[in-house]
């Protein structure tokens, strides 16, 4: 089936992003696996510097959405516009180059490579080094390697990780691996970064630090952040717009205050309350 013609969606973006076209839009996005509809009718808009949240009970299709946005899965229906351009028929690598980067729920670093090399892989497309330079280590090899090293160290210093540069990525403690995954994603110079459960396995003080870091990423790089997270404290604290998924469908969209008090969301998370109907009609 052909993709639908994109139509402007009426989703809310933060006021400061109103004058600029959104970084990410999806229009009636959906995917079927065999007979199972995993995601359906997903339309959302993320502003240029918005921190957006994607929440929902387990199995709601949140990671599937991330896989759709990065073209790991090809959508069955609908369209994705990244920075105003359709990502249809693009490969994952091409979509990344168009400005979307992500981290994974279960950390997927290149664990046998050094911390620095992990970041350098992220810089792959912004550092130019031709094949001749790669093979002979001449023809501008030194210059390009120096540039990529400097840029990688600068990114690492953002998370105070420059001292770990020569360690093997797989040997880092858990929290540092999570941070490195974010640095590696940032190295691809994205317009939007997708974080899949960034606070999973973190203690409250690490989570508090992560919240600061996410804000810092947005402020420093002036990019959008979209995160999947089960830690409601984190989501409600830093997200400006939240989209709630259940069984692959959007059940609510809005600011944290609107989501907190939305009876449909409470029902999806906690099950139907006795007398919920009366509350709804109020």
């Amino acid at each position, binding site marked *: 089936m052909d993709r639908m013609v994109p139509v402007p969606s009426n989703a809310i973006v933060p006021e400061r992003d109103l004058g600029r076209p959104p970084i990410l839009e999806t229009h009636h996005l959906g995917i079927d696996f065999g007979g199972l509809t995993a995601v359906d009718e997903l339309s959302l808009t993320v502003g240029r510097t918005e921190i957006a949240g994607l929440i929902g009970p387990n199995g709601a299709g949140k990671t599937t959405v991330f896989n759709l946005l990065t073209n790991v899965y090809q959508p069955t229906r609908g369209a994705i516009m990244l920075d105003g351009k359709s990502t249809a028929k693009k490969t994952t690598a091409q979509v990344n180059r168009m400005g979307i980067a992500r981290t994974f729920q279960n950390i997927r670093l*290149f664990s046998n490579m050094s911390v620095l*090399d992990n970041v350098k*892989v992220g810089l*792959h497309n912004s550092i130019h080094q031709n094949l001749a330079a790669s093979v002979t280590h001449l023809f501008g090899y030194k210059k390009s390697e120096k540039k990529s090293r400097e840029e990688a160290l600068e990114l690492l210093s953002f998370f105070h990780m420059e001292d770990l540069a020569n360690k093997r990525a797989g040997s880092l403690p858990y929290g540092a691996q999570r941070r490195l995954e974010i640095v590696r994603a940032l190295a691809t110079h994205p317009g939007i970064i997708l974080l899949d459960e960034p606070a999973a396995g973190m203690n409250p003080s690490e989570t508090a630090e992560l919240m600061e870091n996410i804000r810092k990423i947005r402020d420093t790089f002036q990019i959008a952040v979209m995160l999947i997270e089960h830690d409601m404290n984190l989501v409600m604290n830093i997200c400006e717009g939240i989209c709630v998924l259940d069984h692959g469908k959007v059940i609510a969209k809005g600011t944290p205050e609107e989501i907190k008090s939305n009876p449909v969301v409470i029902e999806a998370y906690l099950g139907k309350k006795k007398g919920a109907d009366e509350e709804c009609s109020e």
Partner: protein
Amino acid sequence: MTFISNLINGISLGSVYAIIALGYTMVYGIAKMLNFAHGDVIMVGAYISFCVTTYLGFSPFVSVVISMIVCTILGIVIERLAYKPLRKASSLAVLITAIGVSYFLQNAALLIWGSAPKTFTSIVPFGSIALFNGQLIITAESIVTVLACILIMIALTLFTRKSKMGKGMRAVSEDKAAAELMGINVNVSISVTFAIGSALAAIAGVLLCSAYPVLIPTTGSMPGIKAFTAAVFGGIGSIPGAMLGGVLLGIIEIFSKSYISTNLSDAIVFAVLIIVLLIKPTGLLGKKITEKV
């Protein structure tokens, strides 16, 4: 003196195995497939070099360069036509295709060059070196082979560890999906791997036929199998492992030939492989595979 002479011959033969094994191990590391047609690329490389020197009259050095170019193109074409359409197929389908490509190359060579053995002229223009009053004779081919092997090893290590493209290839070999999300074109990485492997196969073919000058369409199969064994022996997927496995295998083969039995030498080589794999299933330098829980 016989011992030293055997050792040198072993290292020299092992160096050829090592160069071939690099092709197996790199392709396995990146594309997670066993390219059984690799041995036959060696044979094609040797035939090209033979034709360029014999029929076109170019110098041996030019013939090696032309042979490398032809094999590089051949490697990329094989990957594009035979393996790329099977990127998502089961590994068994890819394996059988690889065997098919192997037979295709052998029979194509049979059609083009016929079944009569060709006598390969060594590309090394120097004679042997006699030491200790002629008690120890080292052939120039051995020296060139070992030097070529060392040079290739250094160049390849620098390439994969220090260059942008090499890092991209290592990233693909560790986690293809994550590498794609870093904007790395996996198809390009795989093509470059096949190109490097096939260029090395051309060098190996020329060196092998310089030392053992009989060239027939199946010349590449046995060294191909041995080199595959060497790659597994050293730990498949590991570049230093391929090197170590190749050299050890060469030494074991020559020593069994001279001290035990010529007929049994191949059996001994493969028996050693089985023993190593029983004790250390990942091979000598193979990495432990960590399963995600």
